[in-house]
């Protein structure tokens, strides 16, 4: 004798409706070592304040720093093609950075130290803004200086 008076089929249908839409399988990413220190110290970076900011918010600025380094680490080239690469990388690095923070979430044992995601995003935007204003991200590659033609027959004397 059924005592609960519930229609089992109806219940089954309702259970399907409230089931999570997608089983988001969160696969913990393997630990990825991120180089936070620049390989080459570029003096104008300090002048634009990135070094000071990285001390305060190391995690938040990693993406911004890396985006800048990507642009400036290689030798300047005559082709302007490298410049758009930085713009394309910056949003991707932001997304990666967001994924890192999402997977980490809040530090359970020191919850006060974890920055809210919105604050981290604000800081990244501020860094990108400053970089843009400084002309780092949008500055086109300078055209190579035209070298003065060497006149035939002239040999520089020591």
């Amino acid at each position, binding site marked *: 004798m*059924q*005592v*609960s*008076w*519930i*229609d*089992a089929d*109806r*219940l*089954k249908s*309702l*259970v399907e*409706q*409230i089931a*999570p*839409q997608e089983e988001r399988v969160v696969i*913990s990413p393997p630990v990825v070592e991120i180089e936070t220190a620049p390989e080459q110290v570029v003096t104008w970076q300090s002048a634009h304040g990135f070094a000071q900011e990285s001390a305060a918010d190391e995690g938040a600025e990693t993406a911004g720093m890396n985006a800048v380094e990507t642009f400036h680490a290689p030798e300047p080239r005559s082709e302007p093609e490298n410049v758009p690469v930085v713009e394309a990388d910056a949003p991707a690095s932001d997304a990666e950075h967001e994924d890192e923070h999402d997977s*980490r*979430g*809040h530090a*359970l*044992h020191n*919850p*006060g130290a974890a920055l*809210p995601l919105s604050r981290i995003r604000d800081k990244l935007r501020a860094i990108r803004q400053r970089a843009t204003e400084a002309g780092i991200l949008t500055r086109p590659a300078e055209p190579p200086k035209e070298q003065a033609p060497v006149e035939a027959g002239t040999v520089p004397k020591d």
Partner: protein
Amino acid sequence: MIAIATASQKGGVGKTTLCINLAYSLARRGWRVLLVDTDPQGGVGLSLAKSAKAREGFHEFLVRGGDLSRIVVPTRLPELEIIPAGQFDACARQGWPAHEVPARLADLLRGAELRGADVVLMDTAAGMGNTTEAVVKACDFVVLPQQAEPLAIRSVPHLLETLARFRAEGAGVRVAGILLTMVMREQEMSLKVARELREMLPANLMFQQSIPRLASFLEASALGVPVALTKRNPPPEALIFDQIAAELEQRTGLSKEREREHGHASLLD
């Protein structure tokens, strides 16, 4: 941080008792818990502190928002804080715009997160009124206490229908599970109801643990304390809520982060 609401179609199923004891268990397990009473009857506040009757609380926050620290009440357990219901009648006279309630709730949860809460546990009024609906929709999970009694159990499909509607409206709240309450283990009919429900619903929708109907819970409510504090050493029934807390951690993924960081513990250092 995760936000968990408790909801039921009818009153008297043990929501407030569950919230108080579950909040205490979670806090003892090391989580920073904020227990919020959204029930106009103010069961949580009345149970825990006589002074909570006169305090501002959740409903004042609905009316005028503001700083959460004004309405948070600390407890003797540093990990457990409470927001009592507040003065519902006075607030109802002032009124609050219904369309602002979701934003206020979002502010409350954001404030809780900034305070470092790991879990926000929200006790609600019986039924699915406007405020309770908004609270459930604002949360990540909902726990559904369900009295193990033939007539009471008929409300399960209604509740699931409501949640299906929420899902269709885009709310992301998920069912952590249905928790059988007031199970009378000496009554065959009560056990039969529990068995039938477990047979009809998938295991992931039903808490393994259930809450029996015991005099000690009434005694705890009268004293205004969690069951674990009614005696010097917690009575056996207090451990029921530890079990529920452990299950909840797994169902909501709350313990995943901690397990990832710490793994197993050694007995000897």
